């Protein structure tokens, strides 16, 4: 439970909450999330909702999370969060993006809600590491949903934006912009978060070009702390053998987004097969 310092509407349906926490400001690492109780004790959205840490100001102790209203929980959170009230959360959870090695050239590739943890990563690197060159590739639906642009511009060396309808930046998917650069082997490490299809695509490209790649996975959660085993994701046991063994029952095991993630090395992830009927 921490006091909410401010609530801002970034665009239609996207809300940012900033709260004060000395502990979080000291401990939070890019890629981590918190599990938020929406609507206090309400049963209308009983389970906690996972939300990434978007910014952590080490000096003012201010933590920011940004979320989109999707269903009952996020709706309730948007309705009830207000300056001076409290946010009930568990965190920071748990694994974070691996810090880039000295002098690395990195890219972040984010789509939609996936951009939030990436901003934290970039701001963290900008403020502590002069040796890193960072490009940001960000995909949005349309001009009206482009948010945090200024922050990303400050935090990255270059920023490339795409929108589905071309109303801002390049028209199309963010992968249209970043894949050629990734294919060219321009980056030592790539960090990606967003729709599964996008992450899979970026991962494959990164692996081919020999770049390291980290993805942030999503899954429905129960406890958020590794006890209920709800948030399973398939992770290769012997990463060198790749995902080709997924189907035969060998080579992978269930790990858990809240306990072993949400950040995983892309080549360890056994991506979902296309839906079967």
């Amino acid at each position, binding site marked *: 439970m921490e006091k909410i310092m401010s609530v801002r509407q970034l665009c239609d349906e996207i809300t940012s909450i900033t709260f004060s926490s000395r502990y979080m400001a000291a401990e939070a690492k890019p890629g981590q999330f918190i599990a938020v109780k929406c609507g206090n004790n309400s049963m209308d959205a*009983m*389970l906690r909702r996972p939300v990434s840490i978007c910014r952590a100001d080490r000096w003012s102790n201010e933590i920011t999370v940004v979320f989109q209203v999707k269903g009952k929980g996020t709706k309730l959170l948007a309705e009830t969060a207000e300056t001076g009230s409290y946010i009930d959360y*568990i965190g920071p959870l748990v694994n974070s993006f691996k810090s880039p090695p000295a002098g690395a050239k990195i890219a972040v590739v984010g789509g939609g809600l996936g951009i939030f943890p990436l901003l934290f990563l970039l701001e963290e690197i900008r403020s502590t590491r002069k040796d890193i060159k960072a490009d940001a590739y960000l995909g949005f639906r349309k001009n009206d949903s482009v948010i945090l642009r200024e922050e990303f511009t400050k935090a990255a060396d270059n920023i490339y934006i795409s929108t589905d309808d071309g109303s801002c930046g390049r028209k199309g998917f963010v992968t249209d912009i970043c894949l050629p650069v990734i294919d060219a082997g321009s980056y030592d490490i790539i960090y990606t978060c967003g729709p599964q299809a996008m992450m899979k695509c970026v991962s494959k490209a990164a692996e081919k070009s020999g770049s390291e790649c980290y993805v942030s996975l999503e899954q429905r959660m*129960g406890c958020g702390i590794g006890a209920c085993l*709800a948030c399973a994701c398939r992770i290769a046991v012997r990463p060198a053998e790749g995902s080709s063994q997924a189907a035969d029952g060998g080579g992978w095991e269930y790990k858990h987004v809240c306990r072993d993630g949400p950040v995983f090395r892309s080549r360890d992830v056994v991506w979902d097969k296309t839906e079967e009927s």
Partner: protein
Amino acid sequence: MTPAPDLTADIGRIKLKNPVIAASGTFGFGREYSEYIDLNELGAIAVKGLTLDPRRGNPPPRIAETPAGILNSIGLQNPGIREFIAKEIPFLRSFDTAIIANIAGNTPEEYGLMAEMLENEAVDAIEVNVSCPNIRHGGAAFGISAESIARVTEEVRRKYGGMLIVKLTPNVTDIKAMAMAAQKAGADAVSLINTILGMAVDIETMRPILANNYGGLSGPAVKPVALRMVHETASAVDVPVIGMGGIQSGSDAVEFILAGASAIMVGTASFIYPNACVEIKRGIANYLIRHGFGSVREITGRLKLNRPDQLEE
């Protein structure tokens, strides 16, 4: 000043220091929660359901939120009983709380085998899970007939001399008959309810939300059903009853104790409030103090029924 009430709970062959038990499958092996609460505060921990061999469990999504409840289909993911014995018992033993090993087998013999493996291990009780609706090979079947409950219970009883709890499924017509079968076959206590079989549908994809299609319902939504079944069971058997299903507060716990539960288990609530068990324990103590009761035992089964017949005609 009134003395602190006696919270000890007699559940048959063993006594717990308090009646609050972390429910199986919702508390991992205690490890995860040990960062959030002091495990020494718990009466007992029922660990994640164990099988003979390690199990991967079901594909995700494994959980869906429903009105005041959740559906889960974890599918008994666990590292297997050997790994539990090697790694988890030593960890749990470092705390002053009872360990309850929850076991599920594919055959009565497998249950027996697991019980045998636990016989000389430092667990305080076995909880026989005849009721998990997720395991595809027979799991559900054991719990829904008095005969197979008896068979499994007897098999475990033969191999295990310690405290034996049989955990019942609510997916039956007559819970009393199931409890009586377990008692007759040698159970020292029964625990209930496990989850109620349910489904949730995504109308956009036109598919069930859970990859496993059906799952088990738990949480506050099931509390009235759980409470009724605990009451029915406590009225039907002589062995202690451990009640659960939707307990979120001390007051919920007291409802179950009044209805006849000697101890209670807390499942889903821990997901939402990691310290739920501790708060519930405090709530029970406060209730006892407020009403001037000296012990949990004093209120166990104290519920007085209304007599509608007298009122009506």
